[in-house]
């Protein structure tokens, strides 16, 4: 039995899965019944297969992903962290800035992710004090 994932390891794996658009890597850090709510008003992606399909669709077109995380806020089985991503897509720049809200199982995999974010078709850097 593998030791449980720590939150830092989870976040590193999530970041790598995003940068590399690796759908299998992202599915591995969610439970089999994991819930991925990628937007407050959209239907969730539930279970490994749905999360893989979402990842393929969302990350597939992204090129040169530059992803940063803020300083996480963690408490027991729950955590939240700000993120800031820049990439190119179809010849255009994108900036997506948001917050991940996470609940973990005992083995350190994520049971539920909820996020809120804002998208801008431009290359924007985080403002001073962001993520601190």
């Amino acid at each position, binding site marked *: 039995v593998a030791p449980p994932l720590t939150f830092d390891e989870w976040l590193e794996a999530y970041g790598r899965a995003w940068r590399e658009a690796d759908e299998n890597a992202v599915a591995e850090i969610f439970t089999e019944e994991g819930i991925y709510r990628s937007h407050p008003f959209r239907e969730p992606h539930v279970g490994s297969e749905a999360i893989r399909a979402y990842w393929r669709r969302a990350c597939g077109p992204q090129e040169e992903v530059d992803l940063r995380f803020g*300083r996480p806020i963690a408490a027991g089985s729950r955590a*939240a962290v700000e993120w800031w991503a820049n990439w190119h897509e179809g010849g255009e720049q994108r900036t997506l800035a948001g917050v991940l809200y996470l609940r973990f199982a005992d083995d350190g995999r994520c049971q539920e992710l909820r996020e809120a974010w804002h998208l801008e078709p431009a290359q924007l850097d985080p403002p001073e004090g962001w993520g601190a």
Partner: protein
Amino acid sequence: VTADPRDLAREWARRYREAWLAGDAEAAAALYTEDCVFRSHPFRELEDARAYTRRVFGEAETLDVWFGEPVVDGDRVVAEYRAVLRERDRQLTLAGCSVMRLAPDGRCREARDCWAIEDGRHEPPPGWGL
């Protein structure tokens, strides 16, 4: 005696919710310190939290408000929220979260928000806020 940060965070959310439901902009504004470093959206400039609160409270009537159980790590707090608003005869739902830092007296001294807005009434999904 130092207050438990989780109690401060819950109390902040409880009071904000009450003020929001009552449309009491002054009560909500008083939950921020005078020098709070406040950004209502990642791509906006810093603003005066109290002035912002007074302005947006005047723009819509509040029909329902939910706050999730905050995630608290020392003085740092993330609070999810959702509110059903009425702007003229149109209902809207606002859903997002505040990444905050609380002062020892429980007021917010730093906040960055992220949110989405959608036409109509959308209650939180099952399991939300836990």
